[in-house]
């Protein structure tokens, strides 16, 4: 087999074929041992004549998995041994073929899950091989990513406005896309809806980041504050008929109060104990919402929550007597997409407020005290910082932003029930924060795109999309254990060229 170019392999040594094969065989056997019981047999509801459960066997799948893992491992081992270019080409070829087949189904797809995993596997092998082939010896892609993170931080002043402009223009860009692909200019309702979903999680991520990323308190029950915000708006709107803009600050205040009430007893705890108790409190809120039927509507939830209005002008085709609808106000044709676009800008505004707050507070003594608490609580005490109050403010502020997001959620859905506030939501938000790189605002956006949009893009794969998602998460955490864009720039510089600030 031909070796790669001289530049990428400074020291040529013979490939240790026996070692490479041996390792791949061992890993293949491990796969066999794991896949045989888990994949090899399928229980069915029917039984044999004697009453034994009937098992379907799927040995072909097992064989496929073992061969795939064997080949993948072999490829990775070869990359490590210096055989890079051929492996890269072969992996990309396999990737392209499998992906094409998965989409077009020219050859009947015999098992979508296995094929999906194969596509991901081929991609990873291709990526690693190409990387090692093209990059100078000794640099890992993770180190390059560190540089990227630092660079993004340095160019934040350019990147942030560009990102903001893109976000502002997004609904219109979807319209232009439709125009460019031969249709009429029409804002894509689905795309903007997806944008709303994404921005909701970006905002929640930024909110949770205040507790987890800045103050260093691992909160597993963040969804509780999201729930408090959602129910606050729902109850205030339904019982008193208050509008969204009046309820929004109130929902924030109530969520912040919930944060203080829940935070107070747990702040003496540290680390894992703290995390477990917050997890418990998150569940308590959900269970109360489920069981306090007279107040919260119980498991049926609350429906008929007023939809948002454009500062009093509803988004309706036929507004009630004496009201002017949004489209009448501006003399437009009624379109359902108006409301979605309005919701999009609303959540964009809320998310930007969260971001602006975080960026600003990091430069204020409170934000610095949060970060100092994350670093060393005992040292903080010795400097006269009140750890209890400082932590409580972090809790309250993060809860407040959770509450804002919650009331947005309620007005968007028009319906809330405890179903929406399960632990999995907390876990998802936390995953965004951790994946993005704790404390990194841009990283959270990136992670939210991955965590929210990837499963949406993989929707084609039906039930296997979560499998693909899980594999993707594992790979990212192997590659970047501290998060995609983990980089902290000091909030204050002394020796920089640009002066103190």
């Amino acid at each position, binding site marked *: 087999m031909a070796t790669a170019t001289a530049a990428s392999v400074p020291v040529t040594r013979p490939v240790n074929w026996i070692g490479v094969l041996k390792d791949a065989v061992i890993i293949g056997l491990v796969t066999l041992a794991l896949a045989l019981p888990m994949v090899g047999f399928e229980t069915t509801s029917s039984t044999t004549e004697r009453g034994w459960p009937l098992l379907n066997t799927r040995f072909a799948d097992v064989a496929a998995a073992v061969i795939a893992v064997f080949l993948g491992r072999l490829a990775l081992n070869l990359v490590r041994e210096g055989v890079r270019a051929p492996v890269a080409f072969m992996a990309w070829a396999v990737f392209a073929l499998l992906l094409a087949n998965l989409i077009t189904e020219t050859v009947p797809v015999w098992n979508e899950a296995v094929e999906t995993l194969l596509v991901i596997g081929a991609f990873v092998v291709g990526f690693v091989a190409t990387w090692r082939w093209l990059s100078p010896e000794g640099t890992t892609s993770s180190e390059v990513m560190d540089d990227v993170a630092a660079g993004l931080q340095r160019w934040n002043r350019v990147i942030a406005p560009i990102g903001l402009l893109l976000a502002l223009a997004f609904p219109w860009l979807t319209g232009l896309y439709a125009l460019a692909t031969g249709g009429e200019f029409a804002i894509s309702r689905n795309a903007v809806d997806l944008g709303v979903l994404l921005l909701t999680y970006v905002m929640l991520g930024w909110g949770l980041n205040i507790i987890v990323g800045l103050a260093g308190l691992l909160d597993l029950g963040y969804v509780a504050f999201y729930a408090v915000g959602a129910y606050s708006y729902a109850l205030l709107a339904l019982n008193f008929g208050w509008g969204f803009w009046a309820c929004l600050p109130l929902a924030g205040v109530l969520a912040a109060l919930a944060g203080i009430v829940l935070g107070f007893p747990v702040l003496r705890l540290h680390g894992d104990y703290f995390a477990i108790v917050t997890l418990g409190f998150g569940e308590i809120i959900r269970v109360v919402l489920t069981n306090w039927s007279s107040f919260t509507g119980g498991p049926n939830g609350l429906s008929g929550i007023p939809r948002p209005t454009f500062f009093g002008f509803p988004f309706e085709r036929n507004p009630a007597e004496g009201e002017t609808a949004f489209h009448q106000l501006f003399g437009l044709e009624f379109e359902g997409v108006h409301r979605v676009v309005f919701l999009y800008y609303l959540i964009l505004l809320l998310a930007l407020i969260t971001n602006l707050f975080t960026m600003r507070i990091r430069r204020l003594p409170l934000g610095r005290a949060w970060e100092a608490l994350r670093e060393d609580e005992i*040292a903080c005490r*010795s*400097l*006269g910082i009140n750890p209890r109050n400082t932590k409580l403010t972090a809790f309250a502020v993060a809860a407040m932003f959770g509450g804002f997001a919650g009331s947005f959620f309620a007005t968007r859905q028009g319906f809330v029930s405890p179903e929406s506030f399960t632990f999995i939501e907390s876990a998802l938000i936390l995953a965004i924060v951790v994946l993005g790189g704790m404390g990194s605002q841009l990283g959270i956006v990136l992670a939210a795109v991955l965590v929210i949009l990837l499963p949406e893009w993989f929707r084609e794969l039906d039930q296997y999309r979560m499998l693909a998602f899980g594999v993707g998460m594992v790979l990212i955490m192997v590659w970047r254990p501290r998060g995609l864009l983990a980089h902290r720039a000091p909030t*204050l510089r*002394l020796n920089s060229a640009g002066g103190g600030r």
Partner: protein
Amino acid sequence: MSGDLPAERGPTDPAAATWDRVPPLLTVEHLTMRFGGLTAVDDVSFIAGQREITAIIGPNGAGKTTVFNCLTGFYRPTAGRLSLERGDGTHYLLERMEGFRIAREARVARTFQNIRLFPQMSVLENLIVAQHNKLMLASGYTVLGLFGIGGYREAERAAVEKAKFWLDRVGLTARADWDAGNLPYGDQRRLEIARAMCTEPALLCLDEPAAGLNPRESLELNQLLLSIRDDDGVGVLLIEHDMSVVMGISDHVIVLDYGRKIADGTPVEVRNDPTVIRAYLGEEESDELPPEVAADLGIAPDAGTQ
């Protein structure tokens, strides 16, 4: 300043009774700290004077750090009174105050035996965090600062100036933007002292500041501490094993052993005190086992020297 101690002040005197040197800054009376059955500090009384460097020495496990932890509010003493009198006439009873209030109001700052910086924050940020309470006030408890109202910018500029001043004093100006965790060990020690000084303390408690320093760094530390005493007028309370530091710069030395105070006086007095020599350096002619121990071990008295 040293050397004017009255000769009749013996090491066993109750501290307060015969104190007639400089005005007292910290008065510790009958301090006792028990952890379950273990008495870590047993009825210790001493005085640390204003504008003086007071060293607490003693073998490992003598209770020195426990005294510090009681002083700075990390432990609540089982018994005893800790009073701090600042030169301006304010008076605090430390044993009744919460830990962070001792630092904030009574202005007792401390460093730690195992350095406790904020490792992922920059050196400058470490010093700014130390001025938290002042800045918090200037930012209107964050509310005004968020909207850019009020004098926060000015206050922050002043805080940076103060930080620069201390960076200069400890020789870290060039590394101001480093992450504190990436500093070499000796720099971390000095940064911790600078951070404590940025809180504008009346009493600075240093827990083994010279541990792990090389002789040159140790000498620099001596100069820094003397300058903190003389130029800043801050009283220093020091736990130290490095005798070159203790004997070189202390005005007053207190010796603890097994939680009790066994000596109290000038460095010269303490160095020549037989009790101290016995406890701290071991018995005289310690290479010979006492006869009864040797008998227990079944060896001839002179066999132990081989």
